[in-house]
């Protein structure tokens, strides 16, 4: 069940009605409805993998309470390692086992040894990269004595499985979410409206911008060598907007959906394409994941406090892991390393230039982003190389058919116009959100804007593909 599907459009009002129909004093019933609804939501993807979420919840709930009860440091460390081991084993098995086996096999073949292992085609459970990180942050924070363990299993299980952010984030912290599940939520119509508007805006970014930009991108990456230089540039630049529309659109829908039930999720995107440097970009893109890496990998390794070489090592390690987190493919690893190196180049050299802040910083950020996305989008290094070379291919007599990369040129036009409009609106939003632009208007003005958004979605959205989001593959 995906956010931009008919089945979700039926599921959401049902859960919403059930949740708010329960009297305020029956908090456990409300949370029970959220839990069962979340499990049903996940089971629609694959009911067998539901057992993994439940197992992860059971283990970390138990470990959390044992961590609270244990006084000996060695004991606490053992419980923490149990949680780390279990969650990383889960992630490692389902996400990376096949990749490491194949890579090792390739390595042995390269050395002249004939290795022919059984190809491990392990199905990747949706959302595993997100909910395992969420539960890990819970046990680590208890170990660090930043939070207490949750005594009510229901609150904890809902925290892990909460459907708006279950499959693709934002990755929430127990310190911000668990108090919300312990508290009775009061229905607030303005909060409901703001959530609804955010959902609408997220759908526009996804269905109008991202899905339509997928036309030239999918064409190009199916056979990069067959395209001309202008077509290649169009596709590569289009993907930088497509991935933004897709992922930030998803996050908006997730945050908006949670808001319908009175819950506040963390911001995950703060108009990152307006960042003035690569460093600033990573404080505005997939914020919940980058903060996770900062708090649980970068800072424990020493951050920037232990000298320049250690700092460089830590930066490269964080981006390496970030790349690997995205998927079990060398393209993602090199994507991460490219950003690590780009980050170091900026912080060590480019920032020394007085005029770097402003357009030069933005240009450098966007260039690194666009070129690294070639790796991100390609199926393998070879395809990434072909795509990159096509960008610099000599101009030939062949006339580029940019309009032809869409089913009809007019679709290209309204997609381009929609994209520009979105970027202009982002310019007004900056680090706020779409609601801040709308809620100050009169009631008629708000209705008018809402209807225009719906019209924009219906008239320009792409509805001919199976609904999905790009980050579900992670």
């Amino acid at each position: 069940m995906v956010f931009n599907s008919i089945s979700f459009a039926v599921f959401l009002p049902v859960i919403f009605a059930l949740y708010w129909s329960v009297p305020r004093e029956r908090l456990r019933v409300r949370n029970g409805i959220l839990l069962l609804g979340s499990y049903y939501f996940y089971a629609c993807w694959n009911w067998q993998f539901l057992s993994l979420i439940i197992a992860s919840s059971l283990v970390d709930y138990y470990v959390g309470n044992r961590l609270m009860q244990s006084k000996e440091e060695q004991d606490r460390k053992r419980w923490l390692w149990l949680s780390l081991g279990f969650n990383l084993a889960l992630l490692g098995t389902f996400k990376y086992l096949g990749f490491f086996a194949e890579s090792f096999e390739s390595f042995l073949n390269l050395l002249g040894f004939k290795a022919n292992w059984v190809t491990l085609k392990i199905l990747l459970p949706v959302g595993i990269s997100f909910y395992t990180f969420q539960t890990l942050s819970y046990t680590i924070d208890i170990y660090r004595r930043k939070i207490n363990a949750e005594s009510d299993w229901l609150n904890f299980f809902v925290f892990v499985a909460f459907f708006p952010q279950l499959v693709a984030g934002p990755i929430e912290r127990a310190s911000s979410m668990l108090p919300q599940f312990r508290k009775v939520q009061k229905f607030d119509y303005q909060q409901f409206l703001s959530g609804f508007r955010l959902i609408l805006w997220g759908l526009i970014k996804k269905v109008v911008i991202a899905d339509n930009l997928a036309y030239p991108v999918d064409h190009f990456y199916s056979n990069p060598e067959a395209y001309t230089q202008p077509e290649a540039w169009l596709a590569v630049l289009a993907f930088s907007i497509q991935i933004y529309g897709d992922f930030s659109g998803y996050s908006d829908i997730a945050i908006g959906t949670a808001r319908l039930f009175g819950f506040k999720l963390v911001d995950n995107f703060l108009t990152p394409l307006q960042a003035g440097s690569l460093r600033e970009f990573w404080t505005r893109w997939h914020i919940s994941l980058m903060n996770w890496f900062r708090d649980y990998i970068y800072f424990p390794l020493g951050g920037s406090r232990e000298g320049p070489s250690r700092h460089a090592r830590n930066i490269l390690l964080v981006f390496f892991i970030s790349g690997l987190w995205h998927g079990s493919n060398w393209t993602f690893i090199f994507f991460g390393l490219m950003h690590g190196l780009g980050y170091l180049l900026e912080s060590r050299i480019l920032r020394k230039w007085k005029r770097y802040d402003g357009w030069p910083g933005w240009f450098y950020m966007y260039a690194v982003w666009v070129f690294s996305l070639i790796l991100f989008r390609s199926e393998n290094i070879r395809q990434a190389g072909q795509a990159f070379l096509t960008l610099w291919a000599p101009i030939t007599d062949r006339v580029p058919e940019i309009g032809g990369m869409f089913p009809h040129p007019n679709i290209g036009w309204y997609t381009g116009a929609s994209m520009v409009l979105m970027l202009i609106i982002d310019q007004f939003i900056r680090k706020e959100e779409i609601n801040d632009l709308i809620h100050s208007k009169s009631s008629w003005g708000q209705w008018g804007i809402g209807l225009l958004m719906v019209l924009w979605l219906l008239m320009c959205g792409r509805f001919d593909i199976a609904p999905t989001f790009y980050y579900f593959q992670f």
Partner: protein
Amino acid sequence: MEQLIRHILVVLLLMFFVGVFLFRVERDPKQAYYFVREDCYSHGNWIQQRLFEQSLPVDVAFLGTSVSIHAVYDSLIQQSLNSLLPQDSALEVVNFGYCRPGMDLKYAFLQDIFTTKAPKLVVLELPMQSNAASHPIFPNLAEAKDILRPNQLNKDYPKNVLTAAQTRLSWFRQRFWKSNNYQFYRKYHTAYGFGTGQLERSVETLQEIQEKREATTIRPGSYQKTDQANIRAIQKLCTANNAKLVIWYGKTLGHHMHTPDNFEFVKDRFDYFVPPDSVFTNYSNLMDEDHLNTKGAEALIPFFRDLIFSSLSE
């Protein structure tokens, strides 16, 4: 909460008006068939061309499922039939079979057939068992009034209405943005109308399937009433267009000896044709357990020829 309920009612009202608007979007057959161009080996695209872009008449129209696609060798039936007729009375026999069951789609096709052609005879394939209420592409192809009519009230009705609204939104958008892109789309190189086929199953597999099916007691399908409503609608359409309707039963291996669904309904109202069992139990005539191959289709030619000849002679 009261404000929420009030606003939800306003939104539902707006959605209703949008739905009314969408269902009033005029159906353009070219656009409708192009919309389903990827379906059934682009059969829909061929049907649209045959009806709306080719001036060749259609005198005998076969309607059915993929059973008909592989059983009705229209060009050879036509050849055999016309050898019995005077030269100036030659007839065009066309196979409008389409993948997957769904009686309502046959009605939609027939409406389009009568719009541009004047068939004298419609030969409708009925399955041995009623097994589906609505064809998946019926809401994409049919007129709004046919999608909304009461005899379509079945479990697929809400889905059909929603799909039809989505389809009409696409049509409206294509016209608004002038992004129509019609081309004859021939992705699969099959012989349209009739579909050739060779044996795709092993003899052992076919034997196993036959034994299993023959041992099964077929319970009446749950969609008989819906099928009968559609058959009546097809009959009414034929009568209004001075065409005769005859039924033939698309037998399949192992089910050939069972009494077909709707038989009591059909036998008292229509001329019908039941093909001989021997065609369907001879494995060399089969593509798979549900379809005949080219040899099997050739075996049915004399029967279809005689059926058409006798029906038109009456």
